[in-house]
């Protein structure tokens, strides 16, 4: 291999600027974290609500929830990014459309976070529904029999148990959010992948660049994983052997 290695490249100044390449990558990491964490908050909030809807006894909420999941699960994420970014604004009322195209602050970031959040919410909803479904029906009956309303029953009895059960699959969804956030570069978010491509072109040290980026993504996903394992340990219930059925 006739490659000129230069690991010192990260501390060199970018062409025609006073930042270093490391600054670029760290900015990219910052946006990656911002997109991922915002998306995760959206995904958890909506995913839990929609997963709960899909486990309700009546039909309408179940159908709505199912439609949501199918919609976001069956279109590639990259296409969804483009749909939200280029197509959606055209369907808004005229004034809004103009505002979105011209004045909306942090437009790329917000679009990416929303898109990734909705996409992931469908997957979270699927896990949450499965978790609720694995609880014995008697838990719901017992909560209702005490006079709790259905929302209270979900809030205090069903979801706390279901969420504990689905922490392992949610962990992998959380890790996926970081990995999937790289798609945001396609609509111009200055996240890690975007910055990496820019650095590669600018510095012509593509291998060092992408090895560094790989490491940063790995650290994000790994930290997400450790974080969830910690939560799992923290929320473990004494004496509970999973009783499902």
């Amino acid at each position, binding site marked *: 291999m006739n490659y000129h290695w230069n690991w010192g490249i990260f501390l060199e100044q970018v062409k025609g600027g006073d930042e270093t390449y490391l600054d670029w990558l760290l900015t990219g990491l910052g946006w990656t974290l911002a997109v991922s964490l915002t998306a995760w908050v959206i995904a958890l909030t909506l995913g839990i609500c929609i997963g709960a809807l899909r486990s309700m006894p009546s039909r309408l909420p179940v159908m709505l929830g199912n439609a949501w999941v199918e919609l976001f699960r069956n279109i590639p994420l990259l296409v969804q990014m483009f749909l939200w970014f280029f197509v959606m604004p055209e369907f808004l009322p005229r004034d809004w459309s103009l505002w979105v195209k011209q004045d909306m602050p942090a437009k790329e970031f917000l679009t990416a976070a929303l898109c990734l959040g909705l996409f992931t919410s469908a997957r979270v909803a699927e896990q949450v529904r499965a978790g609720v479904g694995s609880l*014995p029906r*008697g*838990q719901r*009956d*017992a*909560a*209702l*029999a*005490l*006079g*709790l*309303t259905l929302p*209270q029953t979900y809030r*205090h*009895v069903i979801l*706390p*148990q279901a969420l*504990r059960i689905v922490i392992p699959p949610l962990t992998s969804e959380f890790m996926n959010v970081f990995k999937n956030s790289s798609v945001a570069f396609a609509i111009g978010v200055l996240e890690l992948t975007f910055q990496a491509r820019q650095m590669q072109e600018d510095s012509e040290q593509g291998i060092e660049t992408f090895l560094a980026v790989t490491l940063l993504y790995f650290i994000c996903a790994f930290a997400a994983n450790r974080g969830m394992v910690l939560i799992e340990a923290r929320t473990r*219930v*004494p*004496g*509970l*052997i999973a*009783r499902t059925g």
Partner: protein
Amino acid sequence: MIEIRNLSKWYGQTRVLADCSTHVAKGEVVVVCGPSGSGKSTLIKCVNGLEPFARGSITVDGVSVGDPGTDLPRLRARVGMVFQHFELFPHMSVEQNLALAQIKVLGRSKDEAAARGVALLDRVGLREHARKFPGQLSGGQQQRVAIARALAMDPVCLLFDEPTSALDPEMIGEVLDVMVELARTGMTMMCVSHEMGFARKVAKRVVFMDHGEIVEDAPAAQFFEAPASERARTFLARILHH
């Protein structure tokens, strides 16, 4: 207190309750028995509206259960229920299990709820277990906590659905003792149970069900000494020989 009139219910094409009528007066204990699948659980779940029903009417303490205008959560708060599999909330400690509905449904303060909880744990002999989680208790202890949880709501009546049939034999006694004590204090109780000793001791009447029908509804002594139907005789012979 509980008045069930001409109750019928279908699951799709199958009729699981057929024109059932019975009642439980204030301060009375009525035991419901019958073979598995005869509709006992369904009947008792209709009483607090956990199961909807197609025809007939149920009134509890003057409130019509099937009426679309009825505030079911409010009614259920006044009707305690104890389940075959205890159904304590496994992610909450015993004291939290006792406090949850007192706080969320009755609007009691945390301190009030805790005090009531401790008093009831004392009554079922489990005071020192308040901090434990359900998974750390034996089946008999869990069921006694479940009874305390129902009592914490100060119910006007209690429904039991086979409260001892998931228990190891050596734990049945401790749960039945609590139930007998409750009956003695004048609690209105409708109990699905095959514990005939318990029925003899405290039941005013025994309701015998088969295939969704109430086949017999007789004073306890009469039911045990001279069951009117062949089906009840067969049933009694079977469970008394076990």
